[in-house]
């Protein structure tokens, strides 16, 4: 925790910093996300990790509650402090979201053409059974803060329930997803 407040891409070891700055997105993106500086959401998220680590045997009931709080704090950080300045605030992306919602996703004739926001907790890349799909609603407005909070709260709680009640299945899925880092197309991402 002591080093959390010191997090800063400009203070990295020279060699690491050079490698980071060589990445094609570095110059444009790092200033927008304050060079990876910690945020109040990150502090809150990690405070919950400390709480989880401090749990004693027999404190099982506390763990899932702290895990959900941790998940939501980190999700807030990723969405508000990283995705918001990097993507949602981009005028072109914002216009596209509004256009897409108004012109495609609300039209029953053109609906097939819209890349629906989809959330499926499985390692399979494309879920073919339409009944198994979790498709974000037409009116999910990622640029509207309360709407975004509703979406992330709902997704986090779904994941939390799945992890608590279907632990073995979910851990198996996550283990498979963890191997994606070695897949052939991972190079273009990492």
């Amino acid at each position, binding site marked *: 925790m002591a080093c959390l407040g010191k997090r800063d891409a400009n203070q990295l070891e020279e060699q690491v910093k050079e490698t980071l700055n060589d990445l094609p997105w570095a110059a444009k993106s790092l200033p927008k996300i304050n060079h990876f500086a910690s*945020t*109040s*959401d990150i502090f*809150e998220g990690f*405070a*919950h990790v400390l*709480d989880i680590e401090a749990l004693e045997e*027999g404190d*099982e*009931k506390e*763990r*899932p509650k702290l895990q959900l*709080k941790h998940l*939501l704090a980190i999700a*807030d950080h990723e969405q*508000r402090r990283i995705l918001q300045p990097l993507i949602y605030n981009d005028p072109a992306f914002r216009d596209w979201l509004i256009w897409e919602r108004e012109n495609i996703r609300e039209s029953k004739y053109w609906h097939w053409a819209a890349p629906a926001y989809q959330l*499926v*907790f*499985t390692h399979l890349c494309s*879920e073919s059974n*339409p*009944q*198994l*799909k*979790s498709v974000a*609603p037409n*009116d*999910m*407005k990622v640029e*509207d*803060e*309360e*709407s975004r*909070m*509703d979406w992330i*709260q*709902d997704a986090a*709680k*779904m994941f939390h*329930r*799945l992890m*608590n*009640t*279907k*632990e073995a*299945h*979910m851990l198996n*899925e996550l283990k498979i997803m963890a191997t994606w880092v070695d897949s052939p197309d991972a190079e273009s991402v990492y």
Partner: protein
Amino acid sequence: MPPSTMRIKVGEPGVQFLQRNHLDSRGNVDRQPAGLNFHKHRWGTTNPGTVYVEHGAHSFEIPYAVSITGTEDVEKLEEGISDFSVNALISLNRPTPHDEARIAFINLLHTLAQAGWKPFIYYDDPRLSGEQAFRYHQEEDPRGAIPVNYDPTLEEWMRLGSGPWMFYAGDLFLDINVRRNSERMVVDEPGNYLLSFSLYGKEEQGRSHFESEKRDQWQKHWIEMIKKLKKDRYAIEEKLIRKGYTIDTGYVEPIIHPADPVEP
């Protein structure tokens, strides 16, 4: 066209929830491969709806509802929807001034108390009420549950975490969390608020005290667990009495297990 008011009842079969609220099973059920069916409806933030929570004399309304999610386990279909989550705006006035949000939330706490919802206190937390409970929360357990029978001042409201505020009425439990945008926490400027309600029955409450395979056998392990937790509660209470706190010995706990109330 889905109605603007929907009725929910914990334990009702998913099919019944859909039918009586005129929802289509194709568009409103998210069947996750892991084995949970999430029954959903989303009004959105522009035209929020109302959720009527059916629970006999303790029924109440959640205004400005943005979304509902009811969870059904395909291996326990006989239990019906074991828990409902409702996300709601705190006001139609968005972004919302912090004091307006605080007053709306206090009104909600009072409405629930009037409908007979009682405070639920974790078995290893001390039995405290009102101002005493709030003092303990601030001084000893700031990331723990927040007392439901204390009205925070604006200054206290700004410092509070997200909750939960926890109630029970008969065999139903209600947790409320208040989500805020941490970047909009200046007292005299408006903020972003989302209320998150969780409603669940005693089975779910019992299970939540255990992990992994013990969850489904919670009844078997309940007495041993509660004995241990209450020993911790009484030890904390003794320390608090020495610090000048008054224990709320009139606190009535819910009946979850046939052996309740379990004592060490």
